[in-house]
């Protein structure tokens, strides 16, 4: 059971943490203003020069392999709905790590999404 708890934490913390690092990179790179292919490639290269981006890739990879490992230990019907919690974790990370203003209204929306995703995933079994 201890392994399962560690894996669940890794799925949420590393998976969502990786996305938060990508978001942190884009905060540093700045808003894209030119959407032509050459400008997009320059934007991607600028992002790849940022350390947060590589940490993001690393964490997302850890999250992905933790999910695969968890799926080999537990039923999909248990594992997948738990991933709905990552929406709550993401909003918390946005507030603490990215200093985003997560208002009560946004929290309410995030909680509804968590609940909805959980129901969709439970309902398909």
């Amino acid at each position: 059971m201890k392994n399962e708890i560690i894996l669940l934490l890794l799925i949420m913390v590393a998976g969502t943490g990786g996305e938060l690092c990508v978001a942190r990179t884009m905060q540093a790179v700045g808003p894209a203003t030119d959407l032509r292919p050459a400008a997009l490639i320059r934007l991607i290269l600028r992002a790849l020069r940022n350390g947060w981006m590589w940490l993001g890739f690393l964490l997302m990879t850890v999250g992905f392999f933790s999910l695969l490992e968890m799926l080999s230990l537990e039923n999909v019907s248990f594992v997948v709905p738990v991933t709905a919690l990552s929406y709550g974790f993401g909003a918390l990370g946005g507030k603490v790590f990215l200093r985003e203003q997560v208002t009560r209204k946004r929290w309410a929306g995030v909680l509804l999404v968590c609940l909805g995703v959980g129901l969709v995933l439970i309902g398909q079994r």
Partner: protein
Amino acid sequence: MQTFARVPWKVYLLIMVMVILGPLGNVLLGKGMKRIGVASGWNQAGLLHFLTQLSGSGVIWLGLLCLMAFFTAYMLVLSWADYSYVQPASAVAYAMVALLGHFLLGEVVTPVRWAGVLIICLGVLVVGHTPPRTTEFRG
């Protein structure tokens, strides 16, 4: 702070691109991998054969292209909007998969799943009524 009220259509458009291309890329990769099957062995010859099949599969390339376009759209959206705005908004993908499954593939969608779809849409609507960007450029 850059106010984003002027260009919200870009955010909505690219979230829709993410919602469509992310699941599509995964489905194509899954389909391609099922066609190829597992590697015949982890020795050099087996791996070489597997990689040759992988690189020769149009479905795999299409899946990778979709996922690359998805990630580019994701990066662009995050350059304009908060993560805590984009992440729940992209959950529309779950609703989209249920709707497409029901109307295009004739899949049975249980009442619990429909309730989930409705609650996701409601949640996304609530998040959509908050300002997309609340932080400043940190460059």
